């Protein structure tokens, strides 16, 4: 059985938390005591209707205000797959939270209120999904019951969305009419919309092919830690602990160490102390090399015939996440890419992207919280990267403020 991570994007009133609640409820993933707690809380809050949204709102202020502030994770399974649901707030002021949740997602569910159609926030959520390279997007047109379950209403919204999607990089798009409140087309097919013959939401979640999304071609291994037991029997043991970010590496394969460019051969690959012949994408292994080369945390081991770009000059899309300081040309940060950390300075802001209209804004002086822009960075040490849209794991980086130590920017290197 495999694992699917999906993010749900929508705003306060789109019924996002209700949708997650409905998925959990209809797949029988809500346990008796959790249900009782929700019933108790629902009674004290509204007209006594069971509020499935209470399942995901975890913090006191969220329950008080009836909104989702932070990213919440929920876990459930069906006989076919295990799911990690990432629930991120949809309001513009929480764009950074959505970017955070989207960074690890295989699929995005974008909620659209059938009464309002494609709204500004739909455009924003779609841009983020596209920018973060989420391979599959499901647009759930919710509250169909409030537009009389009308096929025409659905088709009109679907058409508008398809036009919008053309401007973006969405590889796989599915549009489904649903009612989260009533459970229509979530797990069970709707009796109220007999005209809809496509898949239910759950059936898309269960069958989307995530294996195909992985980059299995570019062998990239970031060294996290050097294992040197220095005991008598393991006196000369020197193992490089890390994770295959993409591709695979085999025993005997010729490799290159970056950024130095030194070449060697893989003498042995171990997992949990046991020898294995090949390590595949996302496996955490230990690599031993034939030659005694100088390697430390932050270095990358790659296939000799398939090299990433090694450079100190980087162009990236950045989502700015600091609510206290802005980003300006000339500012200095730490750039964390894989396990490497290097100082960097902002050469320039090329242009900002209006995340609602997708327009490019020139001559932008500074970026504030939730702004998205293309920037040029100069790093103190070269980094070995692949363009983000080809290789999510090796094209992603974060900016860290050196004085506050806070993560202030999400970078997708181009």
């Amino acid at each position, binding site marked *: 059985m495999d694992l699917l991570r999906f993010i749900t994007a929508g705003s306060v009133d789109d019924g996002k938390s209700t949708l997650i609640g409905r998925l959990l409820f209809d797949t029988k993933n809500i346990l008796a005591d959790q249900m009782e707690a929700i019933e108790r809380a629902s009674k004290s809050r509204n007209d006594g209707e069971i509020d499935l949204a209470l399942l995901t*709102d975890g913090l006191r202020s969220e329950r008080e205000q009836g909104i989702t502030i932070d990213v919440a994770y929920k876990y459930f399974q069906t006989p076919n797959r295990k799911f990690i649901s990432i629930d991120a707030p949809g309001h513009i002021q929480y764009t950074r939270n959505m970017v*955070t949740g989207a960074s690890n997602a295989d699929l995005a569910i974008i909620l659209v209120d059938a009464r309002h159609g494609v709204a500004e926030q739909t455009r924003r959520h779609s841009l983020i999904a596209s920018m973060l390279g989420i391979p599959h997007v499901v647009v759930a047109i919710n509250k169909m019951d409030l537009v009389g379950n009308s096929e025409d209403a659905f088709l009109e919204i679907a058409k508008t969305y398809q036009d919008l999607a053309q401007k973006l990089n969405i590889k796989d798009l599915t549009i489904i009419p649903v009612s989260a409140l009533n459970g229509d087309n979530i797990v069970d097919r709707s009796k109220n919309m007999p005209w809809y013959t496509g898949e239910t939401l759950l059936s898309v979640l269960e069958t989307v092919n995530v294996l195909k999304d992985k980059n299995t071609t570019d062998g990239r291994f970031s060294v996290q830690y050097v294992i040197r037991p220095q005991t008598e029997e393991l006196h000369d043991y020197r193992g490089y602990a890390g994770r295959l970010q993409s591709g695979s590496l085999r025993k005997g394969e010729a490799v290159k160490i970056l950024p130095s460019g030194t070449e060697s051969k893989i003498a042995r690959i171990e997992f949990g102390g046991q020898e294995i012949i090949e390590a*595949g994408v996302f496996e955490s292994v230990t690599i031993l090399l034939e030659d005694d080369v100088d390697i430390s945390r932050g270095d990358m081991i790659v296939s000799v015939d398939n090299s990433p770009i090694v450079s100190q000059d980087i162009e990236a899309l950045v989502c700015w996440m600091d609510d206290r300081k802005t980003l300006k040309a000339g500012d200095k940060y730490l750039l964390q890419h894989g396990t490497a950390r290097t100082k960097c300075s902002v050469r320039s802001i090329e242009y900002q992207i209006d995340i609602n209209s997708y327009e490019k804004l020139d001559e932008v002086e500074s970026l504030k919280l939730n702004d998205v822009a293309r920037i040029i960075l100069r790093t103190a040490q070269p980094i070995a990267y692949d363009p983000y849209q080809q290789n999510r794991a090796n094209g992603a980086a974060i900016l860290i403020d050196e004085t506050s130590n806070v993560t202030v920017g999400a970078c997708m290197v181009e």
Partner: protein
Amino acid sequence: MSNEVSMSISVKEASDLSDQGNIDRRKPDYLDQLEAEAIYIMREVAGQFERPALLFSGGKDSITLVRLAQKAFAPGKIPFPLVHIDTGHNFVEATDYRDMLAEKTGSKLIVRYVEDTIKAKNLKEPTGKNASRNWLQTFTLLDTIEEFGFDACIGGARRDEEKARAKERIFSFRDEFGQWDPKRQRPELWNLFNGRIHKGENVRVFPISNWTELDVWAYLQREGITLPSIYFAHERECILRDGRLLYNTPVIEKDPEDQIVTRQVRFRTVGDMTCTAAVESSAATLEEVIAEITVSRISERGETRIDDQQTEAAMEDRKKGGYF
């Protein structure tokens, strides 16, 4: 009484990496994915911090952490100590297991006692029905972090356990007072963990954040790890209180309405004796336990944790104060 029953602990199996159960490495599945992610996180801790520690309780989640740490750093030893904050109200089966596992894995074990903190700080111990030292652990934990200068503490918390935990980062920043601020969490993107801190601050790290209770059980089974005997069905003298079965131990203050009963039980979680309830069960093996949990309609903490039942935000409040 059951704690006199000979303990069926085989720590050899728990620490022996050569026997990894029936792992079919050709078919990667969700357990492999979760394991690889957790090992990656363990190694990030070793790579980013100077003085990490692994918070070990003797419970199944921290036993899982030890196994993952062994795999992460094999053939080397685990490069950080195991730290246990002992309330003095722990199950003897769990503390015995803890000692043996530390010895077998060659790990340094640091134990600090809540009892000592109560005396040193002249703290008032909660009394009465349902009184527990659970909250007092926070004081001992923060003192221990300061004593050893730990900059990262690895814990076995999972996001599926509780709704405040569902919102917590894998690298969870704590200020110099050990406090968690849920509104100012660092964004955590991709697999890029930011462990940079100032002196005196620390990071709590949760490598099995994305595991469910069932995943932990399935992993223990797959890895062929033997658990402390209290996780399996046994006869035990219990206090029946408000529909829950508590171990009949002198550290729990009796209430006139308590009934003393002997039942066949097992523990689904292992925490402090005063706030961990047993469940009636005949499951004597890991397979049987997994079968029971799979059909159970009640969540783990809901069934067995008295400390979470107090208010809707009990865990959130404890975490803000510096709790695990």
